[in-house]
């Protein structure tokens, strides 16, 4: 390991060779495993592979499916015989961490084609039974030292938001601009859960969940699943009928305390370290990035993570997003969450960032239809788990690289 790659993984000749997904929304007739299987089959076919080619499998598990070895249950459904398997419990950081582990395995030769899949039927399978739980969820924090005060996932982020407002003067309107912008993107995405356009006033007038976060500051929870395949680029790129693979340039993880109470600084996250290490490993900087896919489980998350990925100074995230997402902003150097993000594309609760990866791949393949960003040739995908506790990033390059 050289100095340049400390804290990050850089591999050559490894890429994302196939993607597949279901739409996000309500899928009342489908189990969690049905959704996983559907997305995986699409990804395998997209890569031009057969199930016999897939020898690695990584999943993010399920809240409704209690099977013991989830990744192997998916493999069983698909008729796989894996040499490498894992069910990753890193919350919303699982998808990019999975890219890292898959890239390491493929580069090393431990596996030829690693299937990564994530999704769930959280909306129809879990939350429909309890309306109060639809927006908030139990088990947000430490079961003994946090949850008993009545903590919910939104209130974890609300504590972060309130502190960011206190330290930097971030405003509710600036947070709301993230929600409005994500909905504009999802409006153009037939796979998205929430597509109706909204404006700042609607966000600010939506019911308060945990001050200062309104309902429309929070992502929805959705049924759906996505999958992608990591392979040697040379394994699939000769087939001219298939889209070219998207190279994985660098990946990195950096994690803080698992619980918010023990997180010393609520407004600066370990994403700073993960991003810096990944950029250094592949010799790029934020200025080289055309597309950023940040983990926008809540509006405040997008604001903080755009700071921590290095796209603006610490504390400037509020004005930065306001400017970036202004309706008539015109072409900007940076495109963010072109699919609508978790905020509007939706979130199955288990590694919803997998759709960030899929959209990044479509953009870099020049296959994003009327969402296509011209000249897209470099993307960073990020994911975070817990309340901005766990972080993983992946830097992806152009298909002609």
């Amino acid at each position, binding site marked *: 390991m050289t100095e340049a790659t400390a804290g990050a993984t850089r591999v050559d000749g490894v890429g994302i060779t196939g993607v597949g997904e279901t739409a996000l929304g309500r899928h009342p007739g489908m189990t969690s495993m049905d959704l996983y299987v559907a997305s995986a089959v699409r990804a395998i076919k997209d890569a031009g592979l057969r199930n016999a080619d897939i020898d690695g499998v990584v999943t993010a598990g399920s809240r409704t499916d209690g099977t013991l070895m989830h990744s192997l249950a998916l493999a069983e459904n698909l008729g796989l015989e894996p040499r490498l398997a894992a069910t990753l419990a890193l919350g919303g950081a699982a998808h990019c961490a999975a890219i890292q582990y898959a890239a390491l395995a493929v580069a090393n030769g431990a596996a030829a084609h690693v299937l990564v899949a994530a999704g769930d039927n959280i909306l129809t399978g879990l939350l429909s039974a309890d309306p109060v739980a639809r927006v908030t969820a139990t088990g947000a924090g430490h079961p003994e030292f946090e949850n008993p005060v009545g903590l919910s996932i939104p209130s974890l982020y*609300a504590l972060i938001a309130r502190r960011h407002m*206190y330290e930097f003067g971030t405003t509710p309107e600036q947070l709301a601009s993230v929600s409005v912008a994500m909905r504009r993107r999802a409006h153009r995405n037939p796979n998205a859960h929430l597509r109706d356009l909204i404006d700042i006033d609607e966000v600010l007038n939506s019911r308060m969940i945990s001050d200062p976060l309104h309902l429309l500051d929070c992502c929805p929870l959705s049924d759906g699943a996505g999958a992608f395949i990591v392979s040697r680029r040379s394994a699939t790129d000769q087939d001219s009928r298939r889209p070219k693979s998207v190279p994985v340039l660098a990946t990195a993880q950096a994690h803080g305390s698992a619980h918010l109470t023990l997180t010393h600084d*609520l407004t600066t996250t370990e994403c700073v370290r993960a991003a810096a290490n990944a950029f250094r490993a592949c010799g790029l900087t934020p200025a080289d990035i055309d597309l950023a896919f940040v983990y926008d489980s809540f509006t405040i998350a997008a604001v903080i993570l755009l700071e921590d990925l290095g796209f603006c100074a610490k504390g400037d995230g509020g004005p930065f997003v306001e400017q970036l997402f202004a309706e008539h902003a015109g072409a900007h150097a940076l495109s963010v969450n072109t699919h609508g993000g978790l905020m509007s594309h939706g979130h199955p609760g288990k590694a919803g960032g997998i759709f960030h990866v899929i959209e990044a791949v479509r953009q870099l393949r020049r296959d994003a239809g009327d969402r296509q960003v011209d000249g897209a040739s470099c993307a960073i995908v990020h994911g975070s788990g817990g309340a901005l506790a766990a972080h993983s990033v992946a830097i992806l390059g152009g298909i002609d690289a």
Partner: protein
Amino acid sequence: MPERQKSPGDSQELPGGDHSTFWQSLAEGRLALQRCADCHRHRYFPSSVCPNCLSSNYEWSDVSPTGKLYSHTTVYRAPTKAFSDEAPYVVGLVDLDAGVRIMVRLASADGSPPEIGSSVHGDFRQVHTERPLPVFVEDSSPDLGAADVEVASGGHDDV
């Protein structure tokens, strides 16, 4: 029933996380934290080893239940039905003078939270369950009698 034979794998003085002392202190109107016997740091959450030096030697010491408010949120949409009746309520993070941070409920006469940076202190008269709820109030607030203030300022509209 004959006593089970001791086997070599039976627990032999492994460090155990003693949480009960913490909860007992709250129930008695005090705030006790573990202090590492080797590096002398206070720690929270209660745990079996010191996260700084990994020592399992510690003692419990009462600390002043005083500190500064680091952040707060008023929860309107409660996470479960059990909490809905209490909503809206205020959750806060307090930086204790002892050097650790703790998540608490914040109580006040009108249900509004203190400003971030305010001095706050534990008001353990308001504990009301077997597992006491850590409740803090602003230093400058008038003396809150347990009868005057509900930890839950219920009666709000639907959640």
